[in-house]
């Protein structure tokens, strides 16, 4: 019986020839990433709960401060200091203020064929380069940090055969929200979403990141693409080499298969408070907004900033709206400066912030108040996700978000 890409990565990490869904294997981890959401808890456990603590391999660890940048109160400052001190003491790669953790990982570390644990649910983004990235809690992270290993239950894979090409003005964000709307918020619970087909060839690494990143919103353990020539070209540009390039075998077994016609996708919105409550954007046009957010590990790269700047150039943000623009990393920010995009946003009246998770996680920036409405390119629209429990979050593409920021209400781009 053949294996899928995900199964081949797990088999290699487990040091066995073959794995099948349902097997439990001990695996060697290629890399572990943790951010300031929970690293202080991991450090506390390391010091307080272990008798002879040691780190299996500090070179495999990456610590990234991205959730509250810069620290906004003494509590987050203390948590970050604990993380910073620990990283220095143990010579762990440490990033601060350089961008959202997943963007930094994609720009600097992730290689095809790797098995990566991240103490953040959107670690599934790394499948855009043919790596198996998955989110874990801080106890699993601690175990991995101390032993270099973990255990995994081999997940089933679900095949998404992409055909055709997205129409003009419709984006990968619309595509992935459409898929989640179709299969539901637990439609691929504990499964791997494997994206393939001729339609995949029309998607850049950025586009693939958009899809893989949101796979956790369908309950998936990860989302993954084959590391093809597009992925390898991206990798080469960053100066890295693959660990291994895997393709799914022709006789690999899938739990289910879907065929998605990209040419039939339209602009969509996920309505509050569920990521799978997806409707055509035209159905919610006219909803008044108080804030708009362009950024996040899902949708804050140069491609999305170009889309937003193209729409808002020469126009103004509505007087009643705060429009926050947050590049996903410093390199994205610098590129946007070079292309004049930051000037365009500033001229329009947008608030341009330093790279970080920002509004998406509802803590240090752009938090919304009672009954306020946000339209966002962030990852989630759960009740209270961006601030007050009575506030509402609509999710849309960079184009829809920017057009809405200008109109003061949800509008088509």
């Amino acid at each position: 019986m053949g294996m899928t890409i995900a199964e081949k990565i797990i088999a290699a990490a487990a040091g066995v020839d073959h794995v099948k869904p349902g097997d439990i294997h001990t695996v060697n981890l290629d890399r572990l990433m943790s951010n300031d959401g929970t690293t202080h808890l991991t450090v506390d456990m390391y010091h307080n709960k272990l008798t002879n603590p040691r780190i299996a391999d500090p070179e495999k660890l990456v610590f990234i401060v991205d959730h509250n940048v810069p620290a906004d109160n003494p509590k987050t400052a203390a948590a970050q200091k604990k993380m910073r001190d620990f990283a220095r003491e143990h010579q762990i790669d440490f990033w601060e203020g350089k961008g959202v953790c997943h963007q930094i990982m994609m720009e600097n570390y992730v290689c095809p064929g790797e098995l990566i644990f991240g103490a953040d649910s959107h670690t599934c983004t790394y499948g855009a380069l043919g790596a198996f990235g998955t989110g874990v809690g801080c106890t699993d992270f601690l175990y991995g940090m101390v032993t270099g290993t973990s255990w995994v239950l081999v997940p089933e894979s679900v095949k998404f055969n992409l055909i055709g090409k997205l129409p003009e003005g419709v984006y990968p964000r619309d595509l992935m929200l459409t898929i989640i709307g179709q299969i539901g918020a637990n439609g691929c619970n504990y499964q791997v979403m494997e994206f393939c087909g001729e339609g995949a060839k029309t998607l850049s690494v950025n586009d693939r990141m958009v899809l893989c990143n949101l796979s956790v919103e369908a309950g998936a353990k990860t989302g993954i693409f084959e590391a093809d020539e597009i992925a390898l070209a991206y990798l080469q540009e960053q100066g890295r080499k693959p660990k291994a390039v895997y393709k799914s075998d022709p006789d690999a077994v899938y739990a289910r298969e879907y065929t998605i016609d990209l040419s039939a996708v339209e602009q969509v919105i996920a309505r509050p408070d569920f990521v799978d409550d997806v409707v055509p954007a035209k159905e919610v046009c006219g909803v008044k907004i108080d804030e708009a957010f362009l950024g996040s590990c899902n949708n804050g790269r140069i491609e999305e900033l170009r889309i937003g700047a193209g729409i808002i150039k020469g126009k103004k943000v509505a007087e009643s709206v705060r429009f926050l623009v947050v590049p996903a990393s410093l390199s994205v920010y610098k590129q946007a400066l070079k292309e004049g995009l930051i000037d365009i946003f500033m001229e329009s009246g947008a608030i341009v912030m330093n790279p970080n998770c920002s509004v998406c996680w509802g803590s240090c920036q752009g938090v919304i108040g009672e009954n306020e409405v946000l339209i966002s390119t962030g990852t989630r629209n759960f009740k209270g996700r961006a601030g007050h429990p009575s506030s509402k979050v609509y999710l849309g593409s960079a184009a829809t978000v920017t057009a809405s920021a200008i109109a003061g209400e949800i509008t088509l781009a």
Partner: protein
Amino acid sequence: METFTGKVWVLGDDIDTDIIIPTEYLALKTIDEMKQYGFSPLRPELAGLIKEGDIIVAGKNFGCGSSREQAPEIIKALGVKCVIAKSFARIFFRNSINNGLLLMEQPDLYDDMTEGDVIKVTVNEHVEYQGRFYQIASLPQNLVDIISAGGLVKAMRKRNGLD
């Protein structure tokens, strides 16, 4: 097999980690300080009402969202004995096992359940409610060992002969 009874609180589908513990309270220093805000976006009074040994019964996809481990820790700290749902999100499931919080999947109980009623749970076998028996799947032994040790770290210490 372990048996216990408990009063049930009923929650819905897709109870996400931001409902279980909103972001704004994650900076608090201890789980004990955080736990009073558990489930507050949905039911602000609930954390104050849950008593030691109570049980949560919920719909599909319980614990979806973030990898924040404070979510299962808070449920445990509130005294909840176990959560029985139609299904669980995977990161939450793993985090719960690692923190010694017992979870059970049961497809039908949620649809029949009235909040405030008492159920009897026989771990790895069934739930008894109003004279009816609802079957629950048994957990693999490696997971039972982790839960009964009180979580992954304690299980690792026990295995290494430290406790």
